[in-house]
């Protein structure tokens, strides 16, 4: 318990002696701190401003989602998955649907696959834009926030047109999708990608070469490729550490094998390289979106939902399915006992596992760098705490 109270006034031992020997100060960073991206709490030991140790304390947003999953039938789980990583709902839906489809041995129609990938990539763009916005604000640059939100808004509008919601999409169904694309939607996506290309250049002009941005990010929060693998860190931090690994290529799902895109990799494993990875991924996601648009324009006909039984009762067994979410590998481990409800549905949350490496990354840096490091991991507390 004393650990839990560390950092509060009560934790300072009242020994009556002058505290001349005290070198380290405990600093409570969060849960109500402007740059902890939600309700993350870090208990820091600082020597001046240098961090001696950082101890994340999570769980402030724990909602028992995994317990809740067990009480819902398979289709009813989907809206709950929206609320894990609430800035990337489409990928959450996707990972869950993949898991159930695997256990049902369901074939998803090609058209549905392309639409799913299209939604995923739009979601990746929006999530990375949000990341860029908040990471820039963490480092003091307030304006990129508004520019990226301008584009994100367009994506949210597109989502609203497609599935009726902007954030918690609930846009996929087991075996495919619920709704057809609305007329004219593809053209609007195309128009967005055109504007978006120029806007990425704008963000880069603002940040990529800016000396302050570079000084603040280069060499900060280094987590090498080996360390990433050891800690299970996936997603942009892994690719920013020179490991060319992306589930979309490594274990292709849906139609990713047919699509032409690159996996951006940068070697230096620092905050700046992770920034570069994400910006390059914006461009690659845009490419994928365009390819999906082309395919869908050529093949307007087709089913969007496979042959799904009316009551979904997978066979007893367990299955794991993962997608490349914007934050890393998002997996769903589904244990079925043959009933119409998941017996156990475990989420492998990328944010949770990436956050675990934070103390390693933060050690020895300044408090100001800690803010950059929290930003660079790109956590969403809804997913960390579930």
């Amino acid at each position, binding site marked *: 318990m004393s650990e839990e109270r560390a950092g509060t*006034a009560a934790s300072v031992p009242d020994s009556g002696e002058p505290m001349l020997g005290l070198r380290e*100060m405990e*600093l*409570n960073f969060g849960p109500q*701190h*402007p*740059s902890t991206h939600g309700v993350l709490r870090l208990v820091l030991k600082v020597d001046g*401003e240098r961090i001696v140790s950082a101890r994340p304390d999570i769980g402030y947003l724990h909602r028992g989602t995994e317990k809740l999953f067990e009480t819902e039938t398979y289709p009813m789980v989907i809206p709950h998955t929206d609320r894990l990583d609430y800035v990337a709902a489409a990928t959450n839906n996707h990972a869950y649907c993949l898991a159930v489809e695997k256990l049902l041995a369901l074939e998803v129609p090609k058209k549905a696959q392309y639409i799913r990938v299209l939604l995923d990539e739009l979601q990746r763009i929006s999530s990375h834009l949000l990341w860029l916005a908040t990471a*820039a*604000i*963490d*480092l*003091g*640059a*307030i*304006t990129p*926030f*508004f*520019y990226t939100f*301008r584009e994100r808004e367009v994506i949210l509008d597109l989502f609203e047109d497609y599935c009726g919601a902007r954030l918690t999409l609930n846009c996929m169904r087991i075996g495919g999708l619920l709704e057809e694309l609305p007329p004219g939607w593809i053209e609007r996506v195309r128009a967005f990608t055109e504007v978006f290309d120029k806007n990425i*250049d704008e963000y*880069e*002009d*603002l*940040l*990529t*070469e*800016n000396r*302050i*941005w570079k*000084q*603040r990010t280069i060499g900060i929060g280094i987590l090498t490729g080996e360390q990433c693998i050891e800690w299970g860190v996936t997603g942009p931090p892994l690719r920013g550490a*020179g490991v*060319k690994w992306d589930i979309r290529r490594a274990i292709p799902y849906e139609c990713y094998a047919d699509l032409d895109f*690159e996996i*951006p*990799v*940068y*070697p230096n494993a620092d905050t700046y390289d992770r920034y*570069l990875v994400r*910006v*390059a991924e914006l*461009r690659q996601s845009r490419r994928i979106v365009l390819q999906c648009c082309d395919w869908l324009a050529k093949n307007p006909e087709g089913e969007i939902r496979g042959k799904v039984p009316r009551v979904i009762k997978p066979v007893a067994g367990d299955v794991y399915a993962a997608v490349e979410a914007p934050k890393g590998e998002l997996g769903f481990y589904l244990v079925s006992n043959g009933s119409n409800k998941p017996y156990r549905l475990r989420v492998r949350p990328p944010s949770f596992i990436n956050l675990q490496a934070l103390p390693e990354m933060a050690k020895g840096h*300044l*408090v*100001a*760098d800690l*803010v950059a490091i929290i930003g660079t991991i790109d956590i969403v507390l809804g997913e960390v705490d579930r």
Partner: protein
Amino acid sequence: MNEALLYNVVIPAVKAIVSVLVVATVAGILTLIERRVLARLQVRQGPNRVGWNGALQWVADVVKLIFKEDIVPAHAESAIHFLAPILVMVPALTVYAFIPWGPEGTFRVPGLGMIRTGPYGTDVNVGLLLLVAITSIGVYGIILGGWASNSKYALMGGLRSAAQLISYEVPMGFALVAAILMSRSLSLVGIVEAQKAAHLWFIFPGLLAFFLYFVSGVAETNRIPFDLPEAESELVAGFHTEYSGFRWAVFFLSEYANMITISAIATTLFFGGWLRPFPNVAWLSFLDLVPGIVWFLLKVSVFLFVYIWFRGTFPRYRFDQLMALGWKILIPLSIGNVVLVAFAALWGIPGLKVLSVVLWVALVGGFVVLSRSTPKRRTVLAEGV
């Protein structure tokens, strides 16, 4: 009325009251202007509800802050906690006694006859020195406020500002020395008149000095990219984390008053103060129809805009980087600049003119070369990994 009484008591008192009121009001309005300008740079609307297009927003803010509960944290040093905002505010307003907003003139005041005075409190012959001395006092308020709050974040903010403000006093001082060398006067009025006499704004020979002064000035006023003592995303709000209500407003207003001070000094030293553009070109004399104070305010507002523009553009330095910038780059540069300007000033006005030509040709030439040669950096996929 007794002339001595008039010139030594009444007029200064009136000026003091007016300048305090005006500066405090303008600082308040500046908060609104900043929000609107920032909003425009960020493709949004900004406050537009109170009054015509939000014109009264600042009044609403001030009223709200005055009526807000004034919280003193438990275990805070309440006396010092109370004193700190005053320590910041008083020097921020005091310096307006020396800033010359316009040239001296003669006015007819009913009942008093002709009065010869200028739109400044007083013309002190060591005005620049006094100004640096007074502005330095403000940092005590910040440090004490941070310390007295009994909060770790506030303490860190206070410590940061102590180091930062003291460090940046040095390059600022050296930049001022360059201006003194050029004008051979310590009086602010004297500096403006020297620019008129030299047929030269000191921005031309003092390009480097101006750059150093303005950068240090941004740092002195705790503005982005040097807003480390406040550093919202790191230290919550820095030294004023534990302040609320009117005491917080006092901190806030002094920051804006300091911004105006820095801009006003930059105008006075380098941009010819109240002088119109090309003050010695005869055929432009129709510009004299605009009073000097307006020219002064125009120039000041340009600098204030640049302040806000900076805020809308840059990320924040880290603390050690800020120190490195100050001690390793700005201070050597400012000393070098003093030497450079000293030699030029030794030669007299022609020397300054030569220096101007050299500096500006180098600057413009460099930009021409760069704009042709620099390819735009885009994230390209790293090869071979």
